[in-house]
């Protein structure tokens, strides 16, 4: 992998850009990344989410970080925000659970109830 190869990848990406820009149906996935989240294992959870979404070439989903939500005992926490739907909060997440959230929730639209904060409380 060299920086010359990066230029080739750039040209490929450029040719298929603008399809997904500013899509109003974009789903946002937030991962808590403050000291509490990091110590509880949020990094592999976020990296797994990104990898799974890449693998499946899902186009309308952005994964990003958020700060401390204030319920540190439930970290790692993942929130899924879909336009027009209620926010879903997953707690005590692991990379394995993250794979399920991608396949069941993000791909097929079925919330994984067992991992939500409602089930944990």
């Amino acid at each position, binding site marked *: *992998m060299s920086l010359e*190869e990066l230029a080739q990848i750039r040209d490929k990406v450029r040719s298929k850009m603008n399809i997904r820009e500013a899509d109003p149906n974009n789903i946002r996935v937030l991962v808590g990344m403050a*000291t509490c989240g*990091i*110590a509880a294992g949020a*990094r592999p959870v*976020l*990296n797994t989410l*990104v990898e799974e979404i890449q693998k499946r*070439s899902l186009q309308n989903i952005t994964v990003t970080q958020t700060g401390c939500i204030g319920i540190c005992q439930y970290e790692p926490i993942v929130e899924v925000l879909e336009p027009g739907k209620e926010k879903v909060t997953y707690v005590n997440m692991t990379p394995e659970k993250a794979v399920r959230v991608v396949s069941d929730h993000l791909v097929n639209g079925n919330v994984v109830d067992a991992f939500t904060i409602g089930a944990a409380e």
Partner: protein
Amino acid sequence: MEELSLHILDLAQNSIAAGADQVKLTVEEQPSNDTLTITVLDNGCGMSAAQAEQAADPFFTTRHTRSIGLGLPLFKMAAELTGGSFSLHSAKGKGTQIRGVFRLSSIDRMPLGDLNGTLLLLIQCNPSTDFIYTRICGNRNFELDTRRIRRILGEVPINRPEITVFLRKYLKEGDLELKGGVYLDESGRACSNQRQGEK
């Protein structure tokens, strides 16, 4: 925290919260001095002298949700536990430099862990921040400068999935290069990011 790379992630998050658009991360292993030095330098809002003095106190924080902040105190403790040291320099409006020096061979030194995972996450989640990452191991070094990457990419966002895949491979190859020809220290021990006994 079980890995130094998680501390680095935590410190870089502080830099980003301080509004930095440039964060320099340096991880240097020098087996001949028995040191591992981690430096995080940012151009964020910095701290006043009074804030800087209290920053490593667990009962000091600038946030309002609760009255404790554990990031810096945990990093300081991790360094001092190995017989190393911690320093913090900050100038209001200019930025902050945090440095931890660890004794490389100390039994209490945490493993570095997944440094590449930390870096990829930072780049993925903070596309408008530049990261200048330098990894030094003995007399070898590797650098990833997102300013350079961005110049090549032009209008293509750095956090596009295809670019993340590239960066992951690029970092991995950098690791191999660092270890290629295995650098040996004076006592003949291989210098790598694994703690002794875990190889």
